[in-house]
Protein backbone atom coordinates (compact mmCIF):
# COMPACT_ATOMS: atom_id res chain seq x y z
CA UNK A 1 0.00 0.00 0.00
CA UNK A 2 1.52 3.26 -1.12
CA UNK A 3 0.20 6.75 -0.44
CA UNK A 4 1.72 9.79 -2.14
CA UNK A 5 1.03 13.34 -0.97
CA UNK A 6 -2.53 12.63 0.12
CA UNK A 7 -4.37 15.81 1.13
CA UNK A 8 -7.88 16.38 2.26
CA UNK A 9 -9.55 19.63 3.17
CA UNK A 10 -13.09 20.44 4.20
CA UNK A 11 -14.73 23.77 3.33
CA UNK A 12 -13.25 26.69 1.45
CA UNK A 13 -11.85 30.14 2.23
CA UNK A 14 -11.76 31.10 5.89
CA UNK A 15 -13.83 28.02 6.76
CA UNK A 16 -11.28 25.70 5.18
CA UNK A 17 -9.95 22.95 7.41
CA UNK A 18 -6.99 20.89 6.24
CA UNK A 19 -7.55 17.44 7.67
CA UNK A 20 -4.64 15.83 5.80
CA UNK A 21 -1.61 17.62 4.39
CA UNK A 22 0.48 15.77 1.83
CA UNK A 23 0.67 12.50 3.71
CA UNK A 24 2.93 9.94 2.07
CA UNK A 25 3.59 6.48 3.42
CA UNK A 26 4.23 2.97 2.27
CA UNK A 27 3.28 -0.27 4.03
CA UNK A 28 4.21 -3.74 2.86
CA UNK A 29 2.40 -7.07 3.04
CA UNK A 30 2.55 -8.83 6.41
CA UNK A 31 3.18 -5.55 8.17
CA UNK A 32 1.00 -4.42 11.05
CA UNK A 33 1.15 -0.64 11.42
CA UNK A 34 -0.58 1.93 13.59
CA UNK A 35 -1.81 5.46 12.91
CA UNK A 36 -1.33 7.49 16.07
CA UNK A 37 -2.08 11.03 17.06
CA UNK A 38 -4.31 13.22 19.16
CA UNK A 39 -7.95 13.85 18.36
CA UNK A 40 -8.34 15.86 15.16
CA UNK A 41 -4.90 14.91 13.90
CA UNK A 42 -6.35 13.22 10.79
CA UNK A 43 -6.05 9.50 11.70
CA UNK A 44 -9.67 8.59 10.94
CA UNK A 45 -9.69 10.77 7.83
CA UNK A 46 -6.63 8.93 6.55
CA UNK A 47 -8.23 5.56 7.39
CA UNK A 48 -11.35 6.62 5.44
CA UNK A 49 -9.26 7.60 2.42
CA UNK A 50 -7.39 4.28 2.49
CA UNK A 51 -10.75 2.52 2.87
CA UNK A 52 -12.00 4.30 -0.26
CA UNK A 53 -14.93 5.83 1.59
CA UNK A 54 -13.73 9.45 1.55
CA UNK A 55 -12.66 11.39 -1.52
CA UNK A 56 -9.25 13.01 -0.98
CA UNK A 57 -8.58 16.48 -2.35
CA UNK A 58 -5.23 15.52 -3.84
CA UNK A 59 -2.66 12.75 -3.99
CA UNK A 60 -2.25 9.24 -5.34
CA UNK A 61 -2.68 5.80 -3.83
CA UNK A 62 -1.79 2.26 -4.80
CA UNK A 63 -3.50 -0.70 -3.16
CA UNK A 64 -2.17 -4.19 -3.76
CA UNK A 65 -0.23 -2.93 -6.77
CA UNK A 66 -3.24 -1.18 -8.37
CA UNK A 67 -3.22 2.57 -8.86
CA UNK A 68 -6.65 3.35 -7.45
CA UNK A 69 -6.17 7.10 -6.95
CA UNK A 70 -4.24 9.53 -9.13
CA UNK A 71 -4.01 13.26 -8.51
CA UNK A 72 -7.08 13.16 -6.28
CA UNK A 73 -9.19 11.27 -8.85
CA UNK A 74 -10.39 7.72 -8.26
CA UNK A 75 -9.31 5.39 -11.03
CA UNK A 76 -12.07 2.87 -10.29
CA UNK A 77 -15.72 3.62 -10.91
CA UNK A 78 -16.94 0.99 -8.47
CA UNK A 79 -15.30 1.70 -5.11
CA UNK A 80 -17.81 -0.57 -3.35
CA UNK A 81 -16.47 -3.52 -5.35
CA UNK A 82 -12.90 -2.43 -4.62
CA UNK A 83 -13.67 -2.43 -0.89
CA UNK A 84 -15.38 -5.79 -1.16
CA UNK A 85 -12.43 -7.39 -2.98
CA UNK A 86 -9.40 -5.84 -1.33
CA UNK A 87 -10.27 -4.28 2.01
CA UNK A 88 -11.50 -5.70 5.29
CA UNK A 89 -12.74 -3.58 8.17
CA UNK A 90 -12.54 -4.15 11.90
CA UNK A 91 -14.52 -1.74 14.05
CA UNK A 92 -14.07 -0.44 17.57
CA UNK A 93 -17.47 -1.78 18.66
CA UNK A 94 -17.46 -4.78 16.30
CA UNK A 95 -20.51 -3.50 14.37
CA UNK A 96 -21.83 -7.02 13.94
CA UNK A 97 -25.29 -7.06 12.41
CA UNK A 98 -27.52 -7.86 15.39
CA UNK A 99 -30.08 -9.82 13.36
CA UNK A 100 -27.54 -12.34 11.97
CA UNK A 101 -25.80 -15.08 13.92
CA UNK A 102 -22.01 -15.25 14.05
CA UNK A 103 -21.75 -17.45 10.95
CA UNK A 104 -24.02 -15.29 8.83
CA UNK A 105 -22.25 -12.11 9.98
CA UNK A 106 -19.13 -13.55 8.34
CA UNK A 107 -20.86 -15.26 5.42
CA UNK A 108 -22.70 -12.12 4.32
CA UNK A 109 -19.49 -10.54 3.07
CA UNK A 110 -18.84 -13.46 0.73
CA UNK A 111 -22.44 -13.55 -0.38
CA UNK A 112 -22.24 -9.86 -1.24
CA UNK A 113 -19.22 -10.73 -3.36
CA UNK A 114 -21.27 -13.33 -5.23
CA UNK A 115 -20.64 -16.59 -3.36
CA UNK A 116 -23.58 -18.95 -2.89
CA UNK A 117 -25.00 -19.33 0.61
CA UNK A 118 -23.63 -22.83 1.25
CA UNK A 119 -20.07 -21.95 0.20
CA UNK A 120 -20.16 -18.71 2.16
CA UNK A 121 -21.38 -20.41 5.32
CA UNK A 122 -18.80 -23.18 4.99
CA UNK A 123 -15.95 -20.70 4.72
CA UNK A 124 -17.41 -18.58 7.51
CA UNK A 125 -17.56 -21.63 9.71
CA UNK A 126 -13.93 -22.47 8.94
CA UNK A 127 -12.81 -18.92 9.71
CA UNK A 128 -14.65 -18.95 13.02
CA UNK A 129 -12.97 -22.25 13.87
CA UNK A 130 -9.58 -20.74 12.98
CA UNK A 131 -10.26 -17.83 15.28
CA UNK A 132 -11.37 -20.20 18.05
CA UNK A 133 -14.96 -19.03 18.18
CA UNK A 134 -16.36 -21.96 16.21
CA UNK A 135 -18.31 -23.09 19.26
CA UNK A 136 -20.26 -19.82 19.09
CA UNK A 137 -21.05 -19.93 15.39
CA UNK A 138 -24.83 -20.00 15.94
CA UNK A 139 -24.84 -17.35 18.65
CA UNK A 140 -26.42 -13.98 18.01
CA UNK A 141 -24.10 -10.98 18.56
CA UNK A 142 -25.96 -9.92 21.71
CA UNK A 143 -25.02 -13.24 23.29
CA UNK A 144 -21.30 -12.96 22.50
CA UNK A 145 -18.70 -11.64 24.95
CA UNK A 146 -16.59 -8.66 23.89
CA UNK A 147 -13.66 -10.90 22.93
CA UNK A 148 -15.85 -13.34 21.03
CA UNK A 149 -17.59 -10.52 19.16
CA UNK A 150 -14.23 -9.03 18.18
CA UNK A 151 -13.06 -12.39 16.85
CA UNK A 152 -16.25 -12.75 14.81
CA UNK A 153 -15.65 -9.21 13.50
CA UNK A 154 -12.10 -10.17 12.55
CA UNK A 155 -13.42 -13.28 10.79
CA UNK A 156 -15.79 -11.05 8.85
CA UNK A 157 -12.91 -8.76 7.87
CA UNK A 158 -11.03 -11.80 6.57
CA UNK A 159 -13.98 -13.40 4.78
CA UNK A 160 -13.03 -12.26 1.28
CA UNK A 161 -9.27 -12.70 1.85
CA UNK A 162 -8.58 -8.95 1.61
CA UNK A 163 -5.03 -7.66 1.04
CA UNK A 164 -5.58 -4.73 3.40
CA UNK A 165 -7.30 -4.79 6.75
CA UNK A 166 -8.24 -1.48 8.33
CA UNK A 167 -8.90 -1.55 12.03
CA UNK A 168 -10.48 1.30 13.93
CA UNK A 169 -9.51 1.11 17.61
CA UNK A 170 -9.59 -2.70 17.50
CA UNK A 171 -8.72 -3.10 21.17
CA UNK A 172 -10.49 -0.12 22.68
CA UNK A 173 -13.34 -2.20 24.07
CA UNK A 174 -11.03 -4.91 25.48
CA UNK A 175 -8.98 -5.28 28.63
CA UNK A 176 -5.19 -5.41 28.26
CA UNK A 177 -5.02 -9.21 28.28
CA UNK A 178 -7.62 -9.58 25.55
CA UNK A 179 -6.11 -6.62 23.67
CA UNK A 180 -2.81 -8.48 23.59
CA UNK A 181 -4.52 -11.64 22.33
CA UNK A 182 -6.27 -9.70 19.54
CA UNK A 183 -3.01 -8.03 18.48
CA UNK A 184 -1.24 -11.39 18.38
CA UNK A 185 -4.09 -12.70 16.30
CA UNK A 186 -3.89 -9.78 13.86
CA UNK A 187 -0.16 -10.29 13.46
CA UNK A 188 -0.67 -14.01 12.81
CA UNK A 189 -3.37 -13.26 10.24
CA UNK A 190 -1.22 -10.65 8.48
CA UNK A 191 1.39 -13.34 7.98
CA UNK A 192 -0.99 -16.18 7.10
CA UNK A 193 -3.09 -14.09 4.70
CA UNK A 194 -0.19 -12.05 3.32
CA UNK A 195 -2.15 -8.94 4.25
CA UNK A 196 -1.35 -5.45 5.42
CA UNK A 197 -2.99 -4.30 8.61
CA UNK A 198 -3.45 -0.60 9.37
CA UNK A 199 -4.92 0.25 12.74
CA UNK A 200 -5.95 3.54 14.32
CA UNK A 201 -5.35 3.34 18.05
CA UNK A 202 -4.86 5.35 21.21
CA UNK A 203 -4.06 2.23 23.19
CA UNK A 204 -0.48 2.78 24.37
CA UNK A 205 -0.22 -0.71 25.89
CA UNK A 206 -0.24 -2.27 22.43
CA UNK A 207 2.13 0.15 20.67
CA UNK A 208 4.94 -2.39 20.94
CA UNK A 209 2.87 -4.94 18.97
CA UNK A 210 3.09 -2.88 15.75
CA UNK A 211 5.83 -3.05 13.12
CA UNK A 212 5.63 0.67 12.51
CA UNK A 213 3.93 3.63 14.13
CA UNK A 214 2.85 6.60 12.01
CA UNK A 215 2.34 9.75 14.08
CA UNK A 216 -0.02 12.35 12.72
CA UNK A 217 -0.39 15.91 13.98
CA UNK A 218 -2.60 18.60 12.40
CA UNK A 219 -3.00 16.43 9.31
CA UNK A 220 0.74 15.97 8.76
CA UNK A 221 2.75 12.81 9.13
CA UNK A 222 5.34 13.83 11.68
CA UNK A 223 6.98 10.52 12.36
CA UNK A 224 6.83 6.99 10.98
Amino acid at each position, binding site marked *: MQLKRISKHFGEGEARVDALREVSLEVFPRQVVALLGPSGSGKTTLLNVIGC*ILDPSAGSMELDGDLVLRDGEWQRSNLRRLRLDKIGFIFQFHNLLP*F*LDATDNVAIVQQLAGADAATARKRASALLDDLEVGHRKHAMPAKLSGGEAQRVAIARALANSPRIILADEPTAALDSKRAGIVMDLLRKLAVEHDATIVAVTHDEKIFDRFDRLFHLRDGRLVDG
Partner: protein
Amino acid sequence: MNLAYRDIRHNLGRFLLTCMGLGLLLGVVLAMIGIYRGLVVDALTIARAPAIDLWVVEANTRGPFAEASRIPGDIREAVARIADVTAAGSVTYQTVEAEHQGSKLRLYVIGYELTRPGGPPEIAEGREITRSRYEMVADRSSGLTLGERIRLGRRTFTVVGLTRHQVNSGGDPAVYITLADAQKLQFELAPPAARVQLARGTSGASLNTVNAVVARLHPSASPDATAATIQRWKHLAAITQEDQEAILSRSLVDRARRQIGLFTSLLLVVSAVIIALIIYTMTMEKLKQIATLKLIGAPDRTIIGMIVQQAMALGSIGFTIGTALIVGVKDYFPRRVILEPDNVAVLGLVVFVVCLLSSGLGVRAALRVDPATALGG
Protein backbone atom coordinates in the same frame (compact mmCIF):
# COMPACT_ATOMS: atom_id res chain seq x y z
CA MET B 1 -29.70 -14.15 2.57
CA ASN B 2 -32.85 -12.13 3.08
CA LEU B 3 -31.84 -9.34 5.44
CA ALA B 4 -35.39 -7.99 5.81
CA TYR B 5 -36.67 -11.38 6.96
CA ARG B 6 -33.71 -11.88 9.33
CA ASP B 7 -34.20 -8.45 10.87
CA ILE B 8 -37.94 -9.06 11.32
CA ARG B 9 -37.29 -12.48 12.85
CA HIS B 10 -34.73 -10.96 15.22
CA ASN B 11 -37.25 -8.35 16.44
CA LEU B 12 -40.35 -10.47 15.87
CA GLY B 13 -42.30 -9.44 18.96
CA ARG B 14 -41.77 -5.76 18.36
CA PHE B 15 -42.52 -6.11 14.66
CA LEU B 16 -45.75 -7.98 15.31
CA LEU B 17 -46.82 -5.41 17.90
CA THR B 18 -46.19 -2.67 15.35
CA CYS B 19 -48.20 -4.65 12.78
CA MET B 20 -50.96 -5.08 15.35
CA GLY B 21 -51.07 -1.33 16.00
CA LEU B 22 -51.12 -0.60 12.30
CA GLY B 23 -53.76 -3.30 11.84
CA LEU B 24 -56.00 -1.65 14.43
CA LEU B 25 -55.57 1.68 12.67
CA LEU B 26 -56.34 0.20 9.26
CA GLY B 27 -59.24 -1.67 10.84
CA VAL B 28 -60.71 1.67 11.93
CA VAL B 29 -60.23 3.03 8.41
CA LEU B 30 -61.98 -0.05 6.98
CA ALA B 31 -64.78 0.29 9.53
CA MET B 32 -65.32 3.91 8.51
CA ILE B 33 -65.42 2.92 4.85
CA GLY B 34 -67.89 0.16 5.76
CA ILE B 35 -70.03 2.56 7.81
CA TYR B 36 -69.99 5.02 4.90
CA ARG B 37 -71.08 2.30 2.47
CA GLY B 38 -73.66 1.05 4.96
CA LEU B 39 -75.14 4.52 5.35
CA VAL B 40 -75.59 4.91 1.59
CA VAL B 41 -77.00 1.40 1.15
CA ASP B 42 -79.32 1.77 4.16
CA ALA B 43 -80.63 5.04 2.75
CA LEU B 44 -81.61 3.29 -0.47
CA THR B 45 -82.87 0.03 1.03
CA ILE B 46 -86.44 1.07 1.79
CA ALA B 47 -86.79 2.86 -1.54
CA ARG B 48 -85.51 -0.19 -3.40
CA ALA B 49 -87.53 -2.73 -1.41
CA PRO B 50 -90.81 -2.54 -3.37
CA ALA B 51 -88.95 -2.88 -6.70
CA ILE B 52 -91.02 -0.22 -8.44
CA ASP B 53 -90.36 2.37 -11.16
CA LEU B 54 -92.35 5.40 -10.08
CA TRP B 55 -93.29 7.28 -6.90
CA VAL B 56 -96.48 9.37 -7.01
CA VAL B 57 -96.49 11.93 -4.20
CA GLU B 58 -98.03 15.23 -3.14
CA ALA B 59 -97.50 18.09 -5.62
CA ASN B 60 -94.40 20.25 -5.09
CA THR B 61 -92.82 17.79 -2.70
CA ARG B 62 -90.01 15.31 -3.00
CA GLY B 63 -91.72 12.78 -0.73
CA PRO B 64 -92.22 10.50 0.89
CA PHE B 65 -88.69 10.25 2.39
CA ALA B 66 -87.13 13.68 1.92
CA GLU B 67 -90.34 15.63 2.53
CA ALA B 68 -93.79 14.94 4.00
CA SER B 69 -96.36 13.88 1.42
CA ARG B 70 -100.07 13.20 1.77
CA ILE B 71 -102.33 12.22 -1.06
CA PRO B 72 -105.80 10.65 -1.17
CA GLY B 73 -105.77 6.87 -1.13
CA ASP B 74 -107.93 6.60 -4.24
CA ILE B 75 -105.15 8.07 -6.35
CA ARG B 76 -103.84 4.52 -6.57
CA GLU B 77 -106.76 3.54 -8.83
CA ALA B 78 -106.14 6.52 -11.12
CA VAL B 79 -102.46 5.67 -11.37
CA ALA B 80 -103.21 2.00 -12.03
CA ARG B 81 -105.30 2.99 -15.06
CA ILE B 82 -102.43 4.84 -16.76
CA ALA B 83 -101.09 3.06 -19.81
CA ASP B 84 -97.76 1.29 -19.14
CA VAL B 85 -98.52 0.94 -15.40
CA THR B 86 -98.66 -2.78 -14.64
CA ALA B 87 -99.25 -2.50 -10.89
CA ALA B 88 -99.75 0.24 -8.32
CA GLY B 89 -99.99 0.25 -4.56
CA SER B 90 -100.56 2.78 -1.80
CA VAL B 91 -97.97 3.08 0.94
CA THR B 92 -97.49 4.96 4.17
CA TYR B 93 -94.27 5.58 6.10
CA GLN B 94 -93.94 6.75 9.67
CA THR B 95 -91.57 6.40 12.62
CA VAL B 96 -93.04 4.99 15.81
CA GLU B 97 -91.51 4.45 19.23
CA ALA B 98 -92.82 1.30 20.86
CA GLU B 99 -92.22 -0.34 24.22
CA HIS B 100 -90.15 -3.46 23.86
CA GLN B 101 -88.65 -5.43 26.71
CA GLY B 102 -88.79 -2.44 29.01
CA SER B 103 -87.19 0.07 26.66
CA LYS B 104 -88.14 2.24 23.73
CA LEU B 105 -87.77 0.72 20.30
CA ARG B 106 -87.80 3.01 17.28
CA LEU B 107 -89.47 1.41 14.31
CA TYR B 108 -90.03 2.61 10.78
CA VAL B 109 -93.56 1.47 10.05
CA ILE B 110 -94.47 0.83 6.43
CA GLY B 111 -98.08 0.31 5.50
CA TYR B 112 -98.86 -1.44 2.24
CA GLU B 113 -101.66 -3.17 0.42
CA LEU B 114 -101.24 -6.91 0.71
CA THR B 115 -101.55 -7.83 -2.95
CA ARG B 116 -99.94 -4.75 -4.38
CA PRO B 117 -96.40 -3.29 -4.66
CA GLY B 118 -94.90 -1.74 -1.53
CA GLY B 119 -94.45 -4.74 0.73
CA PRO B 120 -91.31 -6.41 2.09
CA PRO B 121 -88.92 -7.63 -0.59
CA GLU B 122 -88.13 -11.02 0.89
CA ILE B 123 -89.20 -12.89 4.01
CA ALA B 124 -86.13 -14.40 5.70
CA GLU B 125 -88.10 -16.26 8.35
CA GLY B 126 -91.80 -16.88 8.95
CA ARG B 127 -94.42 -15.80 6.43
CA GLU B 128 -95.94 -12.78 4.79
CA ILE B 129 -98.92 -10.98 6.26
CA THR B 130 -102.06 -12.91 5.33
CA ARG B 131 -104.64 -11.38 7.65
CA SER B 132 -105.87 -7.88 6.99
CA ARG B 133 -105.39 -6.73 10.61
CA TYR B 134 -102.80 -6.73 13.35
CA GLU B 135 -100.06 -8.78 11.74
CA MET B 136 -96.58 -7.51 11.21
CA VAL B 137 -93.41 -8.40 9.32
CA ALA B 138 -90.40 -6.95 11.16
CA ASP B 139 -86.75 -6.62 10.40
CA ARG B 140 -84.42 -8.82 12.41
CA SER B 141 -82.38 -5.81 13.52
CA SER B 142 -85.40 -4.69 15.58
CA GLY B 143 -84.80 -7.59 17.95
CA LEU B 144 -88.39 -8.76 17.49
CA THR B 145 -88.93 -12.49 17.11
CA LEU B 146 -91.57 -14.59 15.40
CA GLY B 147 -94.78 -14.76 17.36
CA GLU B 148 -93.85 -11.83 19.55
CA ARG B 149 -96.56 -9.27 20.19
CA ILE B 150 -95.86 -5.54 20.29
CA ARG B 151 -98.11 -2.56 20.81
CA LEU B 152 -98.08 0.20 18.18
CA GLY B 153 -100.34 3.11 19.01
CA ARG B 154 -103.54 1.70 20.42
CA ARG B 155 -103.24 -1.75 18.85
CA THR B 156 -101.18 -4.87 19.40
CA PHE B 157 -99.51 -6.58 16.47
CA THR B 158 -98.13 -10.09 16.13
CA VAL B 159 -94.83 -10.65 14.33
CA VAL B 160 -95.46 -13.26 11.63
CA GLY B 161 -92.38 -12.78 9.46
CA LEU B 162 -88.85 -11.41 9.60
CA THR B 163 -86.80 -9.59 6.98
CA ARG B 164 -83.07 -8.86 6.78
CA HIS B 165 -81.36 -5.49 6.39
CA GLN B 166 -84.58 -3.49 6.01
CA VAL B 167 -83.80 -0.20 7.76
CA ASN B 168 -84.46 3.43 6.94
CA SER B 169 -81.85 6.13 6.34
CA GLY B 170 -81.59 6.73 10.08
CA GLY B 171 -80.91 3.07 10.76
CA ASP B 172 -84.32 2.41 12.35
CA PRO B 173 -85.54 -1.12 11.57
CA ALA B 174 -88.53 -1.36 9.25
CA VAL B 175 -91.76 -3.15 10.12
CA TYR B 176 -94.47 -3.84 7.56
CA ILE B 177 -98.16 -3.78 8.43
CA THR B 178 -101.26 -3.57 6.27
CA LEU B 179 -102.19 -0.21 4.82
CA ALA B 180 -105.43 -0.13 6.82
CA ASP B 181 -103.55 -0.65 10.08
CA ALA B 182 -100.94 1.92 9.10
CA GLN B 183 -103.56 4.50 8.20
CA LYS B 184 -105.26 4.05 11.56
CA LEU B 185 -101.91 4.28 13.30
CA GLN B 186 -100.96 7.44 11.45
CA PHE B 187 -104.20 9.32 10.92
CA GLU B 188 -106.77 8.08 13.45
CA LEU B 189 -107.30 10.59 16.25
CA ALA B 190 -107.23 9.56 19.85
CA PRO B 191 -110.82 9.37 21.31
CA PRO B 192 -110.59 12.70 23.24
CA ALA B 193 -109.30 14.53 20.16
CA ALA B 194 -111.99 12.90 18.00
CA ARG B 195 -114.67 14.11 20.45
CA VAL B 196 -113.28 17.66 20.26
CA GLN B 197 -113.38 17.53 16.47
CA LEU B 198 -116.92 16.25 16.55
CA ALA B 199 -117.96 19.04 18.93
CA ARG B 200 -116.47 21.58 16.53
CA GLY B 201 -118.65 20.19 13.77
CA THR B 202 -115.85 18.54 11.82
CA SER B 203 -115.55 14.85 11.38
CA GLY B 204 -111.75 14.93 11.24
CA ALA B 205 -109.43 14.06 8.38
CA SER B 206 -110.26 11.15 6.13
CA LEU B 207 -108.43 7.98 7.05
CA ASN B 208 -108.01 7.11 3.42
CA THR B 209 -104.83 9.12 3.07
CA VAL B 210 -101.50 7.70 2.01
CA ASN B 211 -97.95 9.05 1.75
CA ALA B 212 -97.32 7.83 -1.76
CA VAL B 213 -98.51 5.57 -4.51
CA VAL B 214 -95.84 3.33 -5.98
CA ALA B 215 -96.14 2.00 -9.52
CA ARG B 216 -94.51 -0.67 -11.61
CA LEU B 217 -94.28 -0.01 -15.29
CA HIS B 218 -94.13 -2.18 -18.34
CA PRO B 219 -90.46 -3.02 -19.06
CA SER B 220 -90.57 -1.11 -22.34
CA ALA B 221 -92.18 1.96 -20.80
CA SER B 222 -90.31 5.18 -20.07
CA PRO B 223 -90.57 6.19 -16.39
CA ASP B 224 -89.89 9.82 -17.34
CA ALA B 225 -92.74 9.89 -19.85
CA THR B 226 -95.17 8.33 -17.37
CA ALA B 227 -94.00 10.75 -14.68
CA ALA B 228 -94.62 13.66 -17.06
CA THR B 229 -98.16 12.36 -17.67
CA ILE B 230 -98.87 12.29 -13.94
CA GLN B 231 -97.32 15.75 -13.42
CA ARG B 232 -99.96 17.15 -15.76
CA TRP B 233 -102.59 16.32 -13.15
CA LYS B 234 -101.25 19.33 -11.18
CA HIS B 235 -102.15 18.06 -7.70
CA LEU B 236 -99.55 15.29 -7.84
CA ALA B 237 -95.84 14.94 -8.37
CA ALA B 238 -94.16 11.87 -9.84
CA ILE B 239 -90.61 10.85 -9.13
CA THR B 240 -88.83 8.09 -11.00
CA GLN B 241 -87.00 5.42 -8.98
CA GLU B 242 -83.70 6.77 -10.26
CA ASP B 243 -84.55 10.28 -9.06
CA GLN B 244 -85.81 8.94 -5.72
CA GLU B 245 -82.49 7.17 -5.14
CA ALA B 246 -80.64 10.36 -6.07
CA ILE B 247 -82.74 12.33 -3.57
CA LEU B 248 -82.00 9.78 -0.86
CA SER B 249 -78.29 9.48 -1.44
CA ARG B 250 -77.51 13.10 -2.32
CA SER B 251 -80.02 14.95 -0.24
CA LEU B 252 -81.31 12.97 2.70
CA VAL B 253 -78.04 11.48 3.89
CA ASP B 254 -75.77 13.90 2.08
CA ARG B 255 -74.37 15.64 5.17
CA ALA B 256 -73.89 12.43 7.09
CA ARG B 257 -72.30 10.89 4.00
CA ARG B 258 -69.96 13.83 3.52
CA GLN B 259 -69.18 13.94 7.25
CA ILE B 260 -68.16 10.29 7.31
CA GLY B 261 -66.43 10.64 3.94
CA LEU B 262 -64.35 13.56 5.21
CA PHE B 263 -63.53 11.78 8.45
CA THR B 264 -62.54 8.67 6.52
CA SER B 265 -60.27 10.76 4.30
CA LEU B 266 -58.68 12.37 7.35
CA LEU B 267 -58.21 8.95 8.91
CA LEU B 268 -56.54 7.75 5.72
CA VAL B 269 -54.16 10.72 5.77
CA VAL B 270 -53.38 10.11 9.47
CA SER B 271 -52.78 6.42 8.71
CA ALA B 272 -50.48 7.33 5.84
CA VAL B 273 -48.48 9.67 8.08
CA ILE B 274 -48.26 7.04 10.83
CA ILE B 275 -47.16 4.34 8.36
CA ALA B 276 -44.56 6.73 6.97
CA LEU B 277 -43.30 7.57 10.46
CA ILE B 278 -43.10 3.91 11.50
CA ILE B 279 -41.14 2.92 8.40
CA TYR B 280 -38.92 6.00 8.58
CA THR B 281 -38.20 5.36 12.28
CA MET B 282 -37.50 1.68 11.58
CA THR B 283 -34.92 2.80 9.01
CA MET B 284 -33.39 5.50 11.18
CA GLU B 285 -32.85 2.97 13.96
CA LYS B 286 -30.78 0.89 11.55
CA LEU B 287 -28.57 3.64 10.17
CA LYS B 288 -25.45 2.30 11.89
CA GLN B 289 -26.15 -1.18 10.52
CA ILE B 290 -26.80 0.28 7.08
CA ALA B 291 -23.51 2.19 7.26
CA THR B 292 -21.74 -1.06 8.21
CA LEU B 293 -23.40 -2.90 5.33
CA LYS B 294 -22.31 -0.18 2.93
CA LEU B 295 -18.78 -0.24 4.30
CA ILE B 296 -18.41 -3.99 3.91
CA GLY B 297 -19.55 -3.68 0.32
CA ALA B 298 -23.33 -4.12 0.24
CA PRO B 299 -24.77 -2.64 -2.95
CA ASP B 300 -27.57 -0.07 -2.72
CA ARG B 301 -30.10 -2.61 -4.01
CA THR B 302 -29.47 -4.82 -0.96
CA ILE B 303 -30.21 -1.92 1.38
CA ILE B 304 -33.20 -0.70 -0.65
CA GLY B 305 -34.54 -4.26 -0.78
CA MET B 306 -34.28 -4.62 2.98
CA ILE B 307 -36.21 -1.39 3.67
CA VAL B 308 -38.87 -1.88 0.98
CA GLN B 309 -39.49 -5.53 1.91
CA GLN B 310 -39.91 -4.63 5.57
CA ALA B 311 -42.28 -1.80 4.69
CA MET B 312 -44.33 -4.12 2.50
CA ALA B 313 -44.37 -6.83 5.17
CA LEU B 314 -45.51 -4.28 7.73
CA GLY B 315 -48.23 -2.94 5.44
CA SER B 316 -49.51 -6.33 4.28
CA ILE B 317 -49.56 -7.92 7.75
CA GLY B 318 -51.15 -4.79 9.26
CA PHE B 319 -53.73 -4.69 6.49
CA THR B 320 -54.52 -8.40 6.93
CA ILE B 321 -54.94 -7.96 10.69
CA GLY B 322 -57.15 -4.89 10.17
CA THR B 323 -59.33 -6.63 7.57
CA ALA B 324 -59.70 -9.79 9.67
CA LEU B 325 -60.58 -7.69 12.70
CA ILE B 326 -63.33 -5.74 10.95
CA VAL B 327 -64.73 -8.78 9.14
CA GLY B 328 -64.93 -10.45 12.55
CA VAL B 329 -66.67 -7.61 14.40
CA LYS B 330 -68.65 -5.78 11.71
CA ASP B 331 -71.91 -7.54 12.56
CA TYR B 332 -71.75 -6.24 16.12
CA PHE B 333 -71.98 -2.59 15.02
CA PRO B 334 -75.37 -0.99 15.75
CA ARG B 335 -75.65 0.04 12.08
CA ARG B 336 -74.76 -1.90 9.02
CA VAL B 337 -71.06 -2.01 8.05
CA ILE B 338 -70.72 -3.04 4.43
CA LEU B 339 -67.31 -4.12 3.24
CA GLU B 340 -67.38 -4.34 -0.53
CA PRO B 341 -64.46 -6.32 -2.01
CA ASP B 342 -63.57 -3.40 -4.25
CA ASN B 343 -63.40 -1.02 -1.24
CA VAL B 344 -61.10 -3.44 0.58
CA ALA B 345 -58.99 -3.83 -2.56
CA VAL B 346 -58.71 -0.05 -2.99
CA LEU B 347 -57.62 0.38 0.64
CA GLY B 348 -55.10 -2.43 0.14
CA LEU B 349 -53.76 -0.59 -2.88
CA VAL B 350 -53.61 2.67 -0.91
CA VAL B 351 -51.68 0.92 1.89
CA PHE B 352 -49.33 -0.59 -0.71
CA VAL B 353 -48.67 2.81 -2.29
CA VAL B 354 -48.26 4.50 1.12
CA CYS B 355 -45.79 1.81 2.21
CA LEU B 356 -43.90 2.18 -1.04
CA LEU B 357 -43.74 5.97 -0.73
CA SER B 358 -42.88 5.77 2.97
CA SER B 359 -40.12 3.29 2.29
CA GLY B 360 -38.92 5.80 -0.28
CA LEU B 361 -38.30 8.24 2.58
CA GLY B 362 -36.40 5.55 4.46
CA VAL B 363 -34.46 4.56 1.35
CA ARG B 364 -33.54 8.19 0.74
CA ALA B 365 -32.19 8.48 4.29
CA ALA B 366 -30.38 5.14 4.01
CA LEU B 367 -28.70 5.98 0.72
CA ARG B 368 -27.44 9.24 2.18
CA VAL B 369 -25.74 7.45 5.05
CA ASP B 370 -22.01 7.88 4.88
CA PRO B 371 -20.35 4.46 5.29
CA ALA B 372 -17.68 6.24 7.31
CA THR B 373 -20.19 6.63 10.15
CA ALA B 374 -19.74 2.90 10.80
CA LEU B 375 -16.21 3.70 11.94
CA GLY B 376 -15.73 5.13 15.36
CA GLY B 377 -18.11 5.01 18.31
